[in-house]
């Protein structure tokens, strides 16, 4: 039976979903706007006799995650943009050692210390392997508190399944706002998948390492990993479509900006205009094939982001591989610095493009 709907902050819902997914070790360092998440984990992990450490830095926290993941433990860290930059070293090592972990970025606006208001300027860092070396990891962008909980819960399964980190890329609005949420059921820790590769289970030595000093051997290992990335692309690409068929112009937006774009779609409808929304849920893998199909059908796109234009590059790459390559119209509208665009201004931009 489904649980009763609870009113929760995004940050808290992410924490509770992680605990229910079987997260046994959480490591974090305070940073706004994700502090409620670390505090939630402190209280609830300790109550459940699970591991919680307020680390001395984000650098230490991600490496504690690395150590916990090496033992096969379901583990998570969370932070916000400047903290995620610090974690990139550890994320590269997690990917290099094929370790599963869940990483949460409740993003704010940058660069530098920037501001603490919501931002989407971490898209490149999140989707391109933000640390050194050749790698990717999964990235999921929730649009609501409910989806933040659901994706976090699922991220633990996917990280284990594919032996790579899965990131939840939220932002300050998703983290700070409250919505109704029905939480997923609590996992029985005994039911979690076996990890025969993990350290600490006896029966002969196991080595967890990203270090391969012979070039040909390292190349072979990276190629194996990239073959796995292809499988992930096939299996884990997620997106949502709203009113695409009739739409004269399709917004492409994720997370918070997709909510704003949906508002613009609704406003347009009231004014007798048909607009649509294509919402990538997985940012890596990016739903390129579907966008290419839509481009081939002659759809026009307006990417809406809380950045100066990052995801729009993936939209352009996607439509460049479509049948109508080169003709597809991809426009961009963005706000940055922590400014969330209004549905009215997004609609106005759509009108300008359509000449209506």
């Amino acid at each position, binding site marked *: 039976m489904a649980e009763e709907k609870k009113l929760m902050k995004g940050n808290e819902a992410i924490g509770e979903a992680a605990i229910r997914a079987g997260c*046994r*070790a959480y*490591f974090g360092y305070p940073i706004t706007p994700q502090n409620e998440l670390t505090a939630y984990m402190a209280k609830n992990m300790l109550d459940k006799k699970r*591991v919680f*450490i307020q*680390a*001395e*830095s984000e*650098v*230490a*926290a991600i*490496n*504690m*995650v*690395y*150590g*916990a*993941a*090496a*033992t096969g*433990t379901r*583990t998570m860290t969370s932070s916000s943009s400047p903290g995620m930059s610090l974690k990139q*070293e*550890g994320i590269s*090592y997690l990917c290099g*050692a094929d370790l599963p972990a869940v990483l949460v970025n409740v993003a704010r606006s940058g660069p530098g210390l920037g501001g603490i208001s919501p931002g989407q300027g971490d898209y490149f860092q999140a989707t391109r392997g933000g640390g050194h070396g050749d790698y990717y990891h999964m990235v999921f962008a929730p649009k609501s508190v409910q989806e933040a909980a659901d994706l976090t819960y699922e991220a633990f399964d996917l990280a284990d399944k594919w032996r790579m980190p899965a990131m939840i890329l939220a932002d300050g609005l998703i983290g700070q706002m409250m919505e109704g949420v029905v939480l997923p059921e609590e996992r029985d820790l005994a039911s979690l998948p076996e990890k025969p590769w993990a*350290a*600490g289970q*006896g029966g002969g*030595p*196991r*080595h*967890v*390492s*990203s*270090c391969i000093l012979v070039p040909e051997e390292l190349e072979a290992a990276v190629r194996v990993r990239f073959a796995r990335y292809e499988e992930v692309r096939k299996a884990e690409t997620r997106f949502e479509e709203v009113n695409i068929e009739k739409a004269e112009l399709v917004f492409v937006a994720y997370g918070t900006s997709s909510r704003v774009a949906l508002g613009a779609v609704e406003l347009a409808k009231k004014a007798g205009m048909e607009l649509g929304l294509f919402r990538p849920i997985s940012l890596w893998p990016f739903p390129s094939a579907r966008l290419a199909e839509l481009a081939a059908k002659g759809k026009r796109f307006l990417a809406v982001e809380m950045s100066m234009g990052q995801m729009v590059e993936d939209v352009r790459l996607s439509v460049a591989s479509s049948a109508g390559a080169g003709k597809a119209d991809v426009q961009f509208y963005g706000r940055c610095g922590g400014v969330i665009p209004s549905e009215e201004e997004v609609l106005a931009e759509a009108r300008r493009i359509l000449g209506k």
Partner: protein
Amino acid sequence: MELTYGHPKSLKPIQTKYCPGCGHGVIHRLVCEVIDELGVQERSVIMNPVGCSIWADLYFDFDSVQVPHGRTPAGATGVKRCLPDHLVVCYQGDGDLAAIGTAEIIHAANRGEHFTGIFVNNAIYGMTGGQMAPTTLIGQKATTAPYGRDPGEAGMGYPIRVCELLATLEGTRYLARGAVNTAANTRKTKQYIKKAFEMQLRGEGFGLVEILSPCPTNWAMKPGEAVEWLEENMISFYKLGEVKNTIDAASASPATKEATR
């Protein structure tokens, strides 16, 4: 006939990549001998750091987790918290521990993490080719201190005494400094390691054994000269012995008491 001396079971019977006269091989052996004596090979994890000992997984015949440079104590924290019944050995060099990883070691020690630090101090960066370490002695030459370490005009700072630094932290219970330049010092060092490992298995807080170790290659000496240089220059600055020991004497095993007599 009783076997009184042999190759440790936990150490693979292969030749190491270490330079002639390097202390790592001896230290690896000491760690493995103690692990065998404690009978915990099946439940030991070594954290192999960035530095010459990055190849630890080639030599230690038990689980290993390799971490980013300096983050070894953070990685060890994650491993030990998730495997509390395991012996977790956080093996670090002087660059890893006393330069890039100072935050991690201080906070792991301060939390009283239940793993054991094995801190190999050879007063130089080995793997990268002889650069100045935080533990390089004043006047000692390095590729990045070509005229010798100069804390004055060149602003190169002073050698860090790690055990003494950590001793101020409430979370630390056992801090000792040994050396592997002579047979007597080596035997003593093994006793320190054993005490620290036993303490870890009893769950009594943070312990670390610093080990002064020769690096003939980067000191530009012959192995014989290196052990003498260590004796004459390092030990006078880095005093040997137990720097801090708050382990309840009654809880130490009879074997350890015997050995330390």
